[in-house]
């Protein structure tokens, strides 16, 4: 302590200078608006200069990446321009799903060929692989009801295996009881307004006017209304019962359909392909 005191005393001129000079500087900066503003700015000037030089170097180094991204953006804008030039009334509609944001994308398409009178009916629509359509994608009608599955795809057109086809099976639920069944068409029936739900376990009690919805098991999103029960007593002779339903959608007047693009369809297919075959 004594030594410190001696040291301070010996160089008191210097320490006094530091003290008083600091006071002076502080007074200057605190009380003069100009100096105060410059205190910050002058440092910025130096720092800014350094950063500017650094930026030039950085810009040069990243030139390649920037070029690539610009080219990609150009291409994207050009395609957008082309699409905008021939406007299509059918647009993409996105379903908001807060859980898997969004899992399903609805792609609207116009029906250009349809049949209802054959045993196996096929619909043709004006969207194809160029729009992201792939085989086995589910198709629904704009109001209520399912339409079928995509069968084949060309670049700008695709064919849909309509519900009115012997190979089309859609997994459905009775809305009230959650009983699972499968929707088919055409067993002893050629009415395009009617269909059958088969393989419902016998113990379920089913009323007339019960709503049938999709179960979500056969690539359709769950909960799409399909039709209402019109006849519950269709004899089958086994442990399952069949019911007759009236379809919500009218295939004879079908104009537009929505193709549902499922984000996880491929993933699901791959996952399920790993299951050992029975």
């Amino acid at each position, binding site marked *: 302590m004594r030594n410190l005191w001696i040291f301070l005393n010996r160089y*008191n*001129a*210097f320490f*006094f*200078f530091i*003290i*008083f*000079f600091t*006071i*002076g*500087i*502080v*007074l*200057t*900066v*605190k*009380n*003069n608006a*100009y*100096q105060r503003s*410059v*205190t910050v*700015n*002058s440092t910025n*000037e*130096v720092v800014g200069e350094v950063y500017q030089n650094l930026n030039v170097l950085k810009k040069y180094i990243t030139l390649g990446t920037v070029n690539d991204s610009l080219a990609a953006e150009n291409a994207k804008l050009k395609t957008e321009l082309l699409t905008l030039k021939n406007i299509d009334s059918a647009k993409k509609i996105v379903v908001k799903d807060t859980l898997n944001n969004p899992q399903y994308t609805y792609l609207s398409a116009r029906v250009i060929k349809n049949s209802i009178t054959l045993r196996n009916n096929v619909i043709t629509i004006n969207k194809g692989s160029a729009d992201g359509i792939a085989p086995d994608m589910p198709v629904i009608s704009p109001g209520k009801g399912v339409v079928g599955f995509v069968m084949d795809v060309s670049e700008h057109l695709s064919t849909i295996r309509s519900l009115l086809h012997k190979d089309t099976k859609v997994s459905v639920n009775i809305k009230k009881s959650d009983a699972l069944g499968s929707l088919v068409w055409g067993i002893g029936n050629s009415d395009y307004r009617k269909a059958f739900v088969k393989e419902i376990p016998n113990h379920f009690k089913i009323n007339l006017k019960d709503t049938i919805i999709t179960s979500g098991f056969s690539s359709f999103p769950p909960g799409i209304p399909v039709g209402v029960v019109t006849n519950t007593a269709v004899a089958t002779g086994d442990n399952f019962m069949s019911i007759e339903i009236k379809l919500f959608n009218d295939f004879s007047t079908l104009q537009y359909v929505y193709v549902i693009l499922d984000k996880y369809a491929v993933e699901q297919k791959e996952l399920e392909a790993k299951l050992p075959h029975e």
Partner: protein
Amino acid sequence: MNSRLVLVNIVRWFVLLLIQILLLRNLSFYNMATPFVYIIFLLLVPFSTPNLLLYLIAFVTGLTLDAFYDTLGVHTAACVALAFVRILFISVTMSRDGFDEPEPTLGNMGFKWFIIYALLCTTAHHLVLFFLETFRLAEFSYTLLRCFFSIIFTLFTVVLIEFIFYNRKMR
């Protein structure tokens, strides 16, 4: 420090500050050279003044100047810097208790000593003053030039005043 010296210094303080504030504040050559003659007071404070007192005097002088120049702190810092250089210079050039003369005037100390003393003190004062006033490095060379011309101007004036008032004591 006898009472006569104190009185002389007080009078000198008032006179020099009045000159500086009323007259020299309005004086400037091409916006390049501005004289700050009031520092002559700080140069001539008696040898026997303790360091702390010297700093306090410098501080108060600077504050007074700042009050009139509207640049609070600038002159204060400059005067403190001057006091520091003055103490350094005197401790280097003179033995610790060998003050034959009461005041470091031109007449007492001789021309050569005084001119170096004044030059160093003025340089320290002006450098701090101008750079604190400009407060940016962007105009560094211009500020340095202004500083240089002002040092010459002030030094010239200081030596002139010394010659006028203290020449008769010349050894």
